[in-house]
């Protein structure tokens, strides 16, 4: 699996390359600016791009805008955006086109390299990877929602993991329950929230995120 990395800090860029290569990724290019990212994705057509939000020359949200532009130029290009902080407003912009293949994670998540590699594979496969912090803030915002209040604690846990973008199998493994139990929980969640059930993991996640982000 070939990836392009856009990260301006040498230490982090180096660390990311080493880690991804250790997990079997091929790093086609590692650049340090938004413009560099655009050139690299057009040249290498990677399976995914890993982009830091803050890049030179403006050191604001240059990376995010470059990522969105890259998806515009190379339609369907999966991007995983990394940041020192997560903002709902940016998560929404990434999810806005509703096509999946996006990730938005805190840089801390690279500490657990196996999980990070899994998240990147998921994104490259057209899925989503939302940081737990984004999800918990979305849930906190919906604290008064009566339908959400009707979920059992178990269902709530499943909802959180699902919103992060995990598949049923991953949720089952994480919660140490069977996949069938997860499927039961998810269908119950969809009924309680009044959402259209779907077998497609990805569409399901987007529906949940849309519900929370209303």
């Amino acid at each position: 699996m070939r990836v392009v990395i856009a990260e301006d800090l040498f230490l982090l860029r180096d660390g990311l390359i080493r880690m991804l290569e250790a997990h079997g990724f091929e790093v086609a290019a590692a650049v340090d600016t938004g413009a560099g990212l655009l050139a690299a994705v057009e040249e290498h057509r990677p399976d995914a791009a890993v982009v830091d939000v803050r890049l030179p020359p403006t050191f604001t949200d240059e990376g995010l805008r470059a990522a969105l532009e890259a998806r515009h130029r190379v339609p369907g290009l999966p991007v995983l955006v990394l940041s020192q902080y997560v903002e709902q407003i940016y998560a929404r912009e990434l999810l806005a086109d509703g096509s999946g293949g996006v990730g938005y994670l805190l840089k801390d998540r690279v500490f657990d390299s196996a999980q990070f590699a899994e998240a990147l594979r998921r994104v490259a496969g057209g899925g989503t990877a939302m940081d737990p912090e984004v999800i918990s803030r979305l849930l906190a915002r919906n604290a008064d929602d009566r339908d959400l209040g009707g979920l059992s604690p178990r269902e709530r846990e499943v909802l959180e993991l699902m919103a992060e973008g995990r598949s049923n199998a991953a949720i089952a493994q994480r919660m140490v329950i069977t996949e069938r139990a997860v499927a039961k929980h998810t269908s119950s969640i969809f009924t309680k929230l009044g959402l259209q059930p779907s077998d497609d993991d990805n569409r399901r996640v987007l529906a949940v995120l849309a519900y929370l982000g209303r």
Partner: protein
Amino acid sequence: MNGGTIATGNSTTPRRRGSWVGERLLGSARGLAFLGLALAEAGLVTALAFIVSFAIFVYPLLLLPPTLRAVRRLANVTRRLSGVWCGVPIPVPYRASAERGPGGTWRRFGRVSGRLLTEPATWRDLLWMTVDPLAGCLLAIIPITVIGYGVFGVVMPAIWSPIVRAGGNEWYAFIHLTDAFSGALCVPLGIGFIALGLWITPLFLRWYGRLAHSMLAPTKQAALEQQVAHLSESRAEVVDTGAAEIRRIERDLHDGAQARLVAMGMTLSAAEQVLDENPDAARALLLEARDASAKALTELRGLVRGIHPPVLADRGIGEAVRALAMDSPLNVRVTNELSGRPPAPVESAAYFAVSELLANVSKHAGAHQVWVDMRHEHGLLRIDVGDDGRGGADPGRGTGLRGIERRLSAFDGILALSSPPGGPTVATMELPCELSSPKTSSF
């Protein structure tokens, strides 16, 4: 102040009540009050003259400070009345200064009288108190004199003959009082005088007010001095808050991230020591170190958010407030009509003010709907934060609103709060600034 409005600056509006005649009569009678003030002023000036002429006995000088303070008080009465009665408000020109201090009678005397005597406004007060009794108050009492003369004319038919017979004045204005007819002629003339007196009353009061203003209002220099004093005060506050903020950040770093990094280093070196003989323990220690680094990062994120929120830095106040609204449990509608970004310090002050106000709303107001409107007009950044909660917010209680006011005042900004019991509450802030044109994307 419960449920009221706070705003800086105040204005005096003359109250309107009663009929035209009643109002004017009252106005002319007020002229007499000014005459009374003028007499008191004359008394004070005379007293000062005595004190100075007996200065050779030294002890009378002790009376100087209280007398000068009385001068001030009296001048302030004139200033206030000029605003209320004459429609010419006069600001107080004195420099602010501490009254109390150490030292015995004479040292205190020296300090106080030194301060009073070097205050230019004192001398202008004294000039006014000399001019006013001699000439100024004439302006104030002319209307009532004219009216009185008119009344004298109206009653003339009844009183002219005793006066003339007793060898008194045989003239009323230009009428020679010789018989009943000439006495009766005085009546319409008297009515004319009364009407004239009533008509000129507000005119003369205003002239009087302007005369008082010319001597009692702060001179341009004094006004500048007051402004400078205000500026140094607000600058001192800004410097203080800045220093306190830096201390807080230093403490947070020291007790938080820094301490965690030290602990991490120790955990890692412990892991290194047991790595060979006990790999399991080493693994546990490594996991611990990883968790500590995650915690340190979380703390640093919180700290950065408190210093300068990332979205504010990236996108400016419009998007940053939108992000605030998204994180808020309240239903917040954000309207942003800003075409550019204010200067960074102003933007930051406004952002934290909005953040504080939203926090207040979610804590106290019990609101369902909250709205934030941002726009820029007439060189002012104007932000309204309103809610449909229970209202009755009291700016006097709690330090939150005061803190916002202080922060805004550093940029000559103001905060006005309208919160009648039962709601809605609207907080409006205004900050003078220019907007810079938005950055264009490089892609």
